[in-house]
């Protein structure tokens, strides 16, 4: 098990739980929050290295959550998840300080590689 702490924030329950299980099988310690508020609360309790954050959720939107993370947890790296055709939102997120963005559906290998890069950045 690697000592990387990952927080997944997405309101798509089956998607996020399955993704978490797959990351877990690859040795990444993973937690799940189903909305932005819950994610921020979990971060206050225990700060992860990387947050994988869906941009379109009920309640706080991804970019709002990102802004709050940047204020409260500046070392934490954020990877945004967007849908097809929403690359502009991903770019906007990077301007607000996201590490990168990825488009759903996404490959687990690509996500793991991106998380590895983000962890390296978070710890330097």
């Amino acid at each position, binding site marked *: 098990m690697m000592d990387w702490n990952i927080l997944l924030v997405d309101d*798509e329950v089956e998607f996020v739980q*399955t*993704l978490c299980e797959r990351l877990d099988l690859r040795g990444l310690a993973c937690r799940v929050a189903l909305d932005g508020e819950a994610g921020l609360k979990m971060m206050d309790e225990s700060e992860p290295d990387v947050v994988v954050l869906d941009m379109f959720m009920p309640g706080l939107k991804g970019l709002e959550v990102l802004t709050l993370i940047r204020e409260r947890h500046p070392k934490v790296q954020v990877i945004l998840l967007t849908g*097809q055709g929403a690359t502009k939102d991903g770019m906007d997120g990077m301007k607000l300080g996201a590490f990168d963005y990825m488009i*759903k*559906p*996404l490959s687990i290998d690509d996500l793991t590689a991106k998380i590895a890069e983000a962890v390296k950045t978070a710890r330097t």
Partner: protein
Amino acid sequence: MDKARFMGRMAATVSHDLCNVLATIQQASGLLGDYLALARRESLKSVGLRPKFKYNDKFEEIICQVLTQVNRGQDMCDQLSRLAHSSDEGQDGADLALAAELLVKLSGRVAKKHKVKFLVMPAPMRCKAKATLVEVLTAMETALTGIAWECREQGEIVLAPGATDTGVHMDILCQGLSQPDVQSLVQALESGESGACTAGVIQGGVRLAFEKAGLQA
């Protein structure tokens, strides 16, 4: 245009939800693959005491099929999303080559139905029409559907963007089109024209002529 924007917003919502459905299917089938791989490793470690899962190869084949369909769905989702945003984008003009590529990808079913192939030729230069993307797509789709029916089971239909000093155009060509067919198509297109372009007869097909973007009135 408000109706187009409404439809665009609805299509964007559907496209977003569809992406989530595909993402869930993709991860679920991926997880199945992960557990198969885990079972294989454990079987090897047990030095033959634990038998290999009997249906391993069949499961892998099914996972592969699911992932192929997810990729197919992802491509469709991408096109749907581009279509959905077309009512907001391209208000200051539309690139004919990009519009043709989008239309061809969205018209796979028409091509299959009429047993034809659509081919987009590269534009010799940037061909930007003054009309909006929705107007360009509407005109091109009407012409393409008509030609696909006339040319059914006759091979390739070519979409060739081009430009002159005063305008830009999209030629839609098929070797199987006869001159009377083209004449009647142009007449049908002219009767239904929205004013975004004019339809004309050319050798082997139809030319949709648009006003060029960026020209002074």
